[in-house]
Every structure is written in structure tokens, then in C-alpha cells.
């Protein structure tokens, strides 16, 4: 049996580093870890064997583990934990770490490493994972001193989950994991180089309130920071108080109610025309927890050309990185909105709201329903069936953009998707993590025939864990987004985008013991989707959709967001 750690009287108990690691995880209230064992991480798995509090989920590939931990973190707001062995185990995490880093998702990852004496000798399954992940982690550690394990784990959880969240990796050589230490878990964190600013500068807050009072055409541009700081409620109050329309970045979706009259939908490359035109016409742009990403801004000279720009973000490096900001404010967006609210004066903006209303009427989202079962139609039906009461996980590609456009998210943390990295294959493992994070919710994965085949092996994990993900495959037998790019930018020379072979996804479902459906018509969907979603247990819902459908509106390369092309 694993020894009980130090008692409240401060009695130190001797244990191995691996045992101490498990102890640390329990103290951080980690309930589930996603991982894959191997030689160098053996001591940690041996220690996990004795834990009654931590559930270990064995995936089928380490990329699945890190995406699952990521999905778990996104739906809970807590830290996702992942374990892998050295060498290939560690390198298989890389894509998932980069994904979490781009989307500011808090993860703590443990990797095994070859014994200290063998480091640098190209020994079996050795790789310099701290070197490899330096650009894609918020911080990482190579644990050399066994005594430092508790401090390092404490720091890692702190760094991952505070400030602008992100992944932290701890690499543990096998001999270090086996070393014995006297365990004491620190109660405080001391990091002199890491002190995020939370409270906004009071003078700046007053300045912003004055700008808002003066503005005639304000727009709120809200990103993933709203979700990271749990500020959805404050955002809603703020938007209503200043009567300003709200547009979300892709990462910000579900941070503002999708059916609210002030909501403009997503902006940018595939944003709604009215969101992009509101940005173009606004005289005050209030950026909240967003980073003016290139897929949002497009042509920098055409982005909010008439606006005074207020940028509120917890990461000082995001301010002024892309566009010049008139009023920068570093801090936690929730705290800042709370401080701003009492300073807001009631201003009449009926003229601007009327303009927004007419933009919405003039340029609605639309698609042509002729020519087969359209993916947009399926998303609309999915909305009808769920009304925002589900967790929607997506993969990457056209289907992801259609979800962003046609599904109206109601509550925060109900969209789980790879934004910054745009990582195909994220969806299925992330939906597994989402199931553990929100066991009472319906988890629905919307994916494509390309994306699902990147991490399809995790169906085994899903079945083994008894999870009920409903997997909707938008099956167009092509890599739709790339095909669309080739249509516009390569004059229709379709290269390496069409799949001439596919497995029968319905039979694949059966092979895994899941329900399988194939929908080919609108009628199939209208009749079959509610039933497929209602039936307990996991299912693959294979929707055969036309391959030539495009995501529109679309801002062509080099153009400004006011110049999007649209259907019809």
C-alpha cells in the first residue's frame, strides 16, 4: 500500500517521487487522467495502481490523451491532466500541446524520460521533450532534483490555470521517479517571474467608460478570454448596459447567448456579413479577451477603420501586437467588466441598433437548399433537436465553420473546438474528455470524413469507457475546406483532396458495437436525427452531403472584412 502522506502536524512521510506525484494530483483534486503507459513512465503507473481517487483513461494513441485532457479542461474550466512515456509517447503529445497552447487551455502533462545518466546519449526512446515543447508550452520542467517534485507540480498547476491559461509539461527521468523523498506539499506558490495582472488600472477603466458614453456606434468584440475568466454573465450585463452589439470570435462562441438580439454572430473570414460590416462602421471597438487574430482581422487596413480601439486582455503581449490600440488595459476581463458596469451612463443608441437591424435583414446568413442534403441544414436541425442544451464538439474544416454559423450556443463551455491551431482529429478524443468533464450533458461531435479518420482509433476508448457520444459525420468524400481553397485560389485544380475510398461508417459503428445511421436526404435527417440523438448510447450518424458546398460568406485573401463574398 502507498504510505499516507504527511499528517496535518507536518510529519514528513517518505515515499518515491512517483508516489508523491500521485499524492500531488490527489491534492490538486484531479479526478481523471488520460494517458498511455510505457517503459520510462512505469514507476508512475505503478503508483497510480494504488490510487483510489484518480481514474486513469487508457487511450489508443497519446494524441488522443492530450486532446481528451483538453476537452475535459474546456468543459470544466479546470486543469486537464495527461500522462505519456518518453520518446514517441512524448512526441505524440506535441500536436495536442500546441493545440492547447494556441487556445489557452490549462493542461498539466507528465512525460517519462530516460534515466538521468542516459540523458543526451540517444538512448532507447529518448527525446528532448522539454526542448521540443519550449515554444508550445506556457512553461516546462525537466525534473532533475527529486526533492523538487512537489514544488514543481504545485507550480505547474498554478501556472497552467492562472493568468492566460496554457499547457505546462513536466518531464521526469525514470530514476528520479524511483528516488525516495520526504513528501510535503507546498501550500503557497512563489514565482517571482510570474505575477499576472488581474485588476484593471482604475484610471483606464474611467477613460473607457467616458469613451463608451461618447460613442455613437460601439461594437463589442469578445473572444475566448470571456470563457477563460468565466465572464459571460458580466459580458451580457455590459452589452445590455451600453446597448452595443456583440460579435464573437470563433473561440468566444458560447460566451454570449446566440439568440440574443444584440448578438452579431461570428466575425472574420467566415463571419456573418453584418458582424463584419458592423466592425467596419463602428466608431468604438471594445476588444475583450480577444487577440485580433489574422482570420478575424484579414486585411489590417480595412479592419474597424473608423474606430477608437479599446483592448482589454490579461496578456500584455497581445495588446498592440496586431493593431494599434488607443486604450490598452491589462487585466482579468471579468473583474474589469465588473468595475466598468457602475460607471456606465445610459445612452440612446436607437439609431445604431436600427442600423444593425437593417444590416441583419439585408445580409442574413443563407445557403442554397437545392442539390442534396446540405450540411447547414443538418446543423439547423441539430439546433432544433437540442436548443443549445448539449455540448457540441467539432473537428476542423467546413463543418466546424457551419457549426459556428448555424448553431446558436446558449451557455458557456458548450462548444469544444480547435480554434488557433485548427487541428483535424481533435474532435473525437476531445469529446471523450468532454464526457468526463460534463457527465450529465449530451455530448455531440460534429466532424467530417477527413477529420474523423485522423483519430478514429479512439472509438475504442469511447466504447471501453461506456461513453455516449453522438458522432455526426458530414461526409462529403473530400477535404472540403481545402477543396474550397483550391476552387478559389488554384482555379479548381483539385489536388489530393478527394477520397476515392471510405469505410462504410455505419458498419464501422457496428464493429465497435455502436448504433450506426446513414442519412442521405433532408427527410432522413428530419425523421431520423431526433431519434438517433434520443436513443441512449453512442452512435455514428453518417450524413452524405454534396462535396461542392462552400462555406460562405468568405473573405478572399488580401481583402478586407467588409468585402466578403456570399452565396447567390
Amino acid at each position, binding site marked *: 500500500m502507498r504510505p499516507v502522506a504527511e499528517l496535518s502536524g507536518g510529519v514528513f512521510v517518505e515515499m518515491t517521487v512517483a508516489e508523491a506525484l500521485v499524492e500531488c494530483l490527489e491534492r490538486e483534486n484531479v479526478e481523471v487522467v488520460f494517458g498511455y503507459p510505457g517503459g520510462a513512465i512505469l514507476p508512475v503507473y505503478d503508483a497510480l495502481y494504488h490510487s483510489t481517487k484518480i481514474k486513469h483513461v487508457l487511450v489508443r494513441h497519446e494524441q488522443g490523451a492530450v486532446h481528451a485532457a483538453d476537452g475535459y479542461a474546456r468543459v470544466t474550466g479546470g486543469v486537464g491532466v495527461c500522462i505519456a512515456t518518453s520518446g514517441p509517447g512524448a512526441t505524440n503529445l506535441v500536436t495536442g500541446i500546441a493545440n492547447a497552447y494556441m487556445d489557452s487551455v490549462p493542461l498539466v502533462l507528465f512525460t517519462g524520460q530516460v534515466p538521468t545518466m542516459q540523458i543526451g546519449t540517444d538512448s532507447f526512446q529518448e527525446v528532448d521533450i522539454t526542448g521540443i515543447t519550449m515554444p508550445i508550452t506556457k512553461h516546462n520542467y*525537466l525534473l532533475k532534483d527529486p526533492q523538487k517534485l512537489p514544488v514543481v507540480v504545485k507550480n505547474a498547476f498554478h501556472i497552467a490555470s492562472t493568468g492566460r491559461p496554457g499547457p505546462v509539461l513536466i518531464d521526469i527521468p525514470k530514476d528520479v521517479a524511483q528516488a525516495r523523498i520526504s513528501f510535503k506539499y507546498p501550500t503557497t506558490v512563489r*514565482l517571482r517571474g510570474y505575477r499576472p495582472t488581474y485588476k484593471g488600472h482604475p484610471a483606464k477603466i474611467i477613460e473607457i467608460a467616458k469613451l463608451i458614453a461618447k460613442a455613437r456606434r460601439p461594437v463589442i468584440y469578445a473572444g475566448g478570454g470571456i470563457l477563460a475568466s468565466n465572464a459571460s454573465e458580466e459580458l451580457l450585463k455590459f452589452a445590455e448596459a451600453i446597448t452595443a452589439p456583440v460579435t464573437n470570435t470563433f473561440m468566444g462562441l458560447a460566451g454570449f447567448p446566440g439568440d440574443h438580439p444584440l448578438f452579431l454572430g461570428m466575425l472574420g473570414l467566415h463571419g456573418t456579413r453584418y458582424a463584419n460590416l458592423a466592425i467596419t462602421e463602428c466608431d468604438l471597438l471594445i476588444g475583450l479577451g480577444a487577440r485580433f487574430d489574422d482570420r478575424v482581422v484579414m486585411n489590417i487596413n480595412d479592419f474597424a477603420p473608423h474606430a477608437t480601439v479599446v483592448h482589454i486582455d490579461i496578456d500584455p*503581449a497581445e495588446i498592440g501586437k496586431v493593431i494599434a490600440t488607443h486604450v490598452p488595459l*491589462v487585466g482579468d476581463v471579468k473583474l474589469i467588466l465588473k468595475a466598468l458596469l457602475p460607471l456606465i451612463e445610459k445612452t440612446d443608441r436607437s439609431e445604431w441598433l436600427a442600423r444593425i437591424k437593417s444590416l441583419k435583414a439585408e445580409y442574413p446568413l443563407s445557403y442554397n437548399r437545392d442539390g442534396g442534403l446540405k450540411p447547414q441544414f443538418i446543423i439547423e436541425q441539430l439546433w432544433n433537436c437540442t436548443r443549445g442544451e448539449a455540448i457540441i464538439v467539432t473537428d476542423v474544416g467546413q463543418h466546424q465553420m457551419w457549426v459556428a454559423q448555424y448553431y446558436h450556443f446558449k451557455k458557456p463551455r458548450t462548444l469544444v473546438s480547435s480554434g488557433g491551431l485548427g487541428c483535424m482529429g481533435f474532435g473525437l478524443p476531445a469529446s471523450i474528455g468532454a464526457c468526463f468533464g460534463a457527465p450529465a450533458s449530451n455530448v455531440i461531435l460534429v466532424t467530417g470524413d477527413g477529420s474523423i479518420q485522423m483519430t478514429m482509433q479512439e472509438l475504442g476508448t469511447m466504447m471501453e469507457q461506456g461513453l455516449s457520444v453522438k458522432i455526426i459525420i458530414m461526409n462529403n468524400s473530400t477535404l472540403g475546406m481545402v477543396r474550397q481553397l483550391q476552387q478559389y485560389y488554384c482555379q479548381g485544380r483539385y489536388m489530393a483532396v478527394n477520397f476515392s475510398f471510405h469505410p462504410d461508417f455505419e458498419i464501422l459503428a457496428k464493429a465497435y458495437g455502436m448504433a450506426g445511421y446513414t442519412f442521405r436526404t433532408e427527410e432522413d435527417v428530419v425523421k431520423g436525427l431526433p431519434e438517433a440523438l434520443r436513443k441512449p448510447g453512442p452512435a455514428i450518424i453518417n450524413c452524405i452531403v454534396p462535396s461542392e458546398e462552400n462555406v460562405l460568406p468568405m473573405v478572399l485573401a488580401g481583402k478586407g472584412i467588409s468585402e466578403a463574398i456570399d452565396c447567390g
Partner: protein
Amino acid sequence: MDKHTLSVLVENAPGVLTRVAGLFARRGFNIDSLAVGRTDRDDVSRMTIVVEGDKPLIEQVTKQLHKLIDVIKISNITDDEYVDRELVMIKVAAEPGQRVEIMHMAGIFRARVVDLGRKTMTFECTGNEGKINAFEESLRPYGIKELVRTGKIAMLRGSKFVALSGGALARELEGD
């Protein structure tokens, strides 16, 4: 494009130099020179980084550096009064007949001879960048065989100093 001198206090931990150098490389910032060594405290090192760029770039460099957990404090001392020094060692071709002439010239720069070979002389010289450049140019006609520069180190003049205490970066950037 101006040259900026950043005095950066970092944790004296393994990998810090890699983190800083890696950051410069992947964000496309150019390091003009970088000198690193520990301070009077074992656990803290100081990096003197000279970087070329306009104001927004330097601001971005500073902010990105500050995101590194191991970076404790950054001071852009460019606009302050400061003393800076660099050490150079130059091995120059010197036939016996030329030695007096070379030594005489080296004296002007207060350079010292630190080694002699059969056909070479090795000098050390300290000073600011301009002086080091001038010394190098004056030896060039004789044939420089090898040259090593440390990179610039710098310190504020008077009683001002770059030490551990100080306001958070955000406050500095917003101009409290």
C-alpha cells in the same frame, strides 16, 4: 532602426538561455548581442541584450520576454544614462619587426598584450562598442587571425539600479 539595450534579470536555471534565444528566433527578433552571467546572487543571472528595432517591436520583445516564467525583470535602459563595456580579444599577425609599432598603437586604446606567438600577438581591450570597433579597424591592416567579443554588458549610472523589486510590467507599459 534604433538599438535598444535591455537589462534582464532571469532565474539562474537550466535552459533559460535556450528559452530566451528560442523566443527571439521564433518571433523573428534579431539579437545584436547577448551577454549573460550570474549576479551577486547565485540564483539570479543577468542578460544584457542588445536588440535592433522600432518602438513597437521593442515593446513586443519586452512583453514576450516577460511571458517567460524564468524572466524576473526587464529594464530597457536605452534612454537612461548608463555605462557599457565590452571585452574583445584579438589575435593579430605580427612579425617581430612590426611588434613595437603594433604595441604603440594598441597603447592608444589602452589594450594589453595577453599572449605572444612566434608570428602573432594577442590583445585584450575593453570599452564601449565604438572603441572596440575602432581598435579592430586599426589592427585589421596587419591581419586579424582571430577575434572574440563578449557582447555588451551595461549598468545604469549614478545611484539608479536594475534590481529585483519593482512594479509589474503591465503597470510600466501602461504608464502608471
